[in-house]
């Protein structure tokens, strides 16, 4: 138990926590990222090569990664 935390809370009065993406934008961002990843996956499926794994797989994986996290939040499961 640390009673100095009251002062820590007061000292941080001017800086509320704001997420990188607000609640109202989470669904649209998640939807766009997941749609984009689906499209890139389609292109990758047409030309499966080692170069494609890097050139398409990496951006698609990134889009799925952030899209999944934001889609979880958008549907109410705040991870």
């Amino acid at each position, binding site marked *: 138990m640390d009673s100095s*935390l*009251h002062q820590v809370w007061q000292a*941080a009065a001017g800086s509320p926590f704001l997420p990188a993406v607000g609640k109202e934008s989470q669904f649209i961002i998640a939807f766009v990222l997941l749609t984009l990843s689906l499209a890139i996956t389609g292109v990758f499926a047409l030309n499966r090569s080692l170069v*494609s*794994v890097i050139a398409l797989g990496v951006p698609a*994986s990134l889009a799925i990664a952030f899209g999944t996290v*934001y889609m*979880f939040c958008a549907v109410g499961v705040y*991870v």
Partner: protein
Amino acid sequence: MKSLSFVAALLGLLAGPCSALSVVCLPAEFKPPPVFKNTNLVHVVSVEKSFAREQINVLVENVSGEPQDEYFLPFTAEQIARLGGIEAKDRKDDKVGPFGVDLVEYSSQSDVQYYRITLPAPLKAGAQQTLAISWYYLKPYRPLPASIGQDEQQFLIYDFSLYAASAYPTLKQKTEVKLSTVTIPDYTKYTNSEGKEFPEKHGSKLLYGPFDEQPAGAVYPAQIRFEFTKPVIHVSELERDIEVSHWGGNVAFEERYTLYHRGANLSTLFNRVKWAQSQYYNPATSALKELKFPLQIGSVDPYFTDAIGNVSTSRFRSSKREAMLELKPRYPVFGGWKYPFTIGWNTNAANVLRNTASGGHVLKVPFIEGPKQVEGVEYGDVTVRVLLPEGSENVKFYTDLPNSSIVETSVGIHKTYLDTTGRTAIVIKAKNLVDDFRFRDLIISYDTPLAGTLQKPLVIFGSMLAVYAAAWAVGKVEVGFSSK
């Protein structure tokens, strides 16, 4: 002083292990030293709610030859089990914070147990200090009659002592009993040495005393029977989860209640028609038919479920000034009945979470919120679990609750959606709380490194990249017959 405490603690260990946080162990033959006398004492017994509150305002005088800083307050073992929220402060100086209050563990065989109140500065020989000590008793009443009709008045009995329990002699004292009603059919009468009969009745108050000098440990058993046609709400267990999401910018709350009505049982079977008819003229009833939860402003997305599923009889009034969640249980809860239910809601993280200058975060939430009822609510066991984002470290926490109410604290790991290593979970267990402690703060500071923040997307990124690589690798495998 410290070394003495250490020796005392060592001896106490021989008597039995200390189990709770705010406990001091003393030798088995311990007796409070007779170093104080109570010059003047006012004992206030408040039975206005589902729980009983007792307070003593006492002017203590150090009658020993040396400075003293430990004042002991006796209770029976049965009272200790039902006692909660004990706090002591200086009656005349609000700036002096709450004094240290610790349960003394010395002999489990003894019926008299003590709380030790540590004064902030030792009281000099012959000096006086005014203490205000308050505490609550849970499960304090028994209904008489034990069973009533569903439209009848409910009466409760409360047993107490006219003399405030004290480990020191008391020169002068009086006792005031506060009730929420003027209907008091039975109460103990007392005649003093001058032949004057007590109590004096002033509306819903009973005044006993002043009494003559009483020795240490003096008791005068008393009983009061009063009308209480309201629910006697006892939450035997409350589990409160608070889940912090940095990605979602959200703090989610969920509370699971196991609620009992400890009033008089129904003498006949519940009559639904009679109940529905009575709702048109809304008479006073001992049944619990509504719970009001004033949530923090900015709360959204409330839900209310029970063992069957969603309960649709709820309203949520949300505006810039309030966030009131009004619940009607699936059935009116009469004496002896139980109603377990769950509620939950969200709030924007910005309302309760701030960034610190050192790059960390600080969260401030109420330890309990719970319903705000005229008749009051008491809580037996309360478990608050705060789930911080995955990878959070350097956790510190503090609560305004009386130390004596905290039973256990721990920091562990909890795994849920999209977690790999698990979220940092702070679990704080408290016991014997009442709704007077609503909105006592729980403040938690923590750091979440960038690696912890990015853990979830990185795990999904790695998994998906593996899938693409596997798709390429599988495509390289020749499964057809060679043309050569």
